[in-house]
């Protein structure tokens, strides 16, 4: 049964015209993770590679393609956890980096902390030589369109994630 990798591209309402891109994106991420496992790589290498592929795919809400905050900016969160040692690394509200998942892994490997946030995470990224990217490179036309659409006072951006009782 081993090795195995399972990936997801997010739960919610996926527009019909995005079905194909979503499915092909998760399939190629799973293949990438599996290739690493078959090559003797660790489960941590596999999950970081799979998540990196999905962050780089503008069809998904992570990395490039992230949704925008109310000010039209990108703030991202990420976590990794190692089942052997229970070590973990996370970043929150981090800006201007392409792959938050790789920064989360650096937090796990290079610091004694579990999570770095905002400007602290950015300073750590700089100290680790993680390149800063312009925010524009993380914003897609689609994410900007959805941001504008949900600025309306009566908008409910998380409607598809709130369970209707009954």
């Amino acid at each position, binding site marked *: *049964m*081993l*090795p*195995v*990798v*399972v*990936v*997801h*591209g*997010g*739960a*919610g*309402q*996926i527009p019909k015209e995005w*079905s194909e891109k*979503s*499915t092909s994106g*998760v*399939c190629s991420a799973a293949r990438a*993770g*599996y290739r690493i*496992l078959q090559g003797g790589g*660790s*489960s*941590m290498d*596999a*999950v970081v590679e799979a*998540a990196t592929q*999905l*962050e780089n795919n503008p069809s*998904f*809400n992570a990395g490039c393609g992230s*949704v*925008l*905050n*109310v000010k039209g900016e990108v*703030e*991202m*969160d*990420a*976590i*990794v*956890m*190692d*089942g*052997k040692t229970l070590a973990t690394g*996370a970043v*929150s*509200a981090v800006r201007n980096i392409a*792959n*938050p*998942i790789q920064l989360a892994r650096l937090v796990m490997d290079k610091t004694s902390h579990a*999570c770095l*946030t905002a400007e602290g995470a950015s300073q750590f990224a700089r100290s680790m030589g993680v390149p800063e990217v312009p925010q524009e490179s993380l914003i897609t036309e689609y994410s900007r369109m959805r941001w504008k659409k*949900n600025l309306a006072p009566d908008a409910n*951006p998380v409607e*598809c*994630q*709130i369970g*209707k009782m009954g």
Partner: protein
Amino acid sequence: TVGAVAVDSEGNIACATSSGGILNKMEGRVGDTPCIGSGGYADNRMGAVSTTGHGEAIMKVTLARLILFHMEQGQSVEAASDLGLAYMKSRVSGLGGVVTVDPQGHWATCFTSQQMAWAAAQKDTLHYGLYTGEHFTQSI
């Protein structure tokens, strides 16, 4: 949100979750993703989970660790994932999805939202789906 769980040939387990958060969130809002036990959890003795969905609801029930508690009590990956998601829906009206794996390599993808794009690779076979009940396979 995107995420992954994996078990390598040595039986070591890991999880990864990454997200842009929720649409039009307040500046500085942090969701479940970076919170250990909510956005993800991994332990070689139980398994690993990566979650997605309404972050504030996931944090209230610490969804990833909750599912692994059910597995510790003997539930299968599928039953534990369904129990965790059902509790989140009934207790705090939150919808979401998870990918879960156990140390033997059993895996499950469950969601209470309308869709979740998922894929799994095991024994040279690629499994994938998007809508409830879909499970397609092809050779890797």
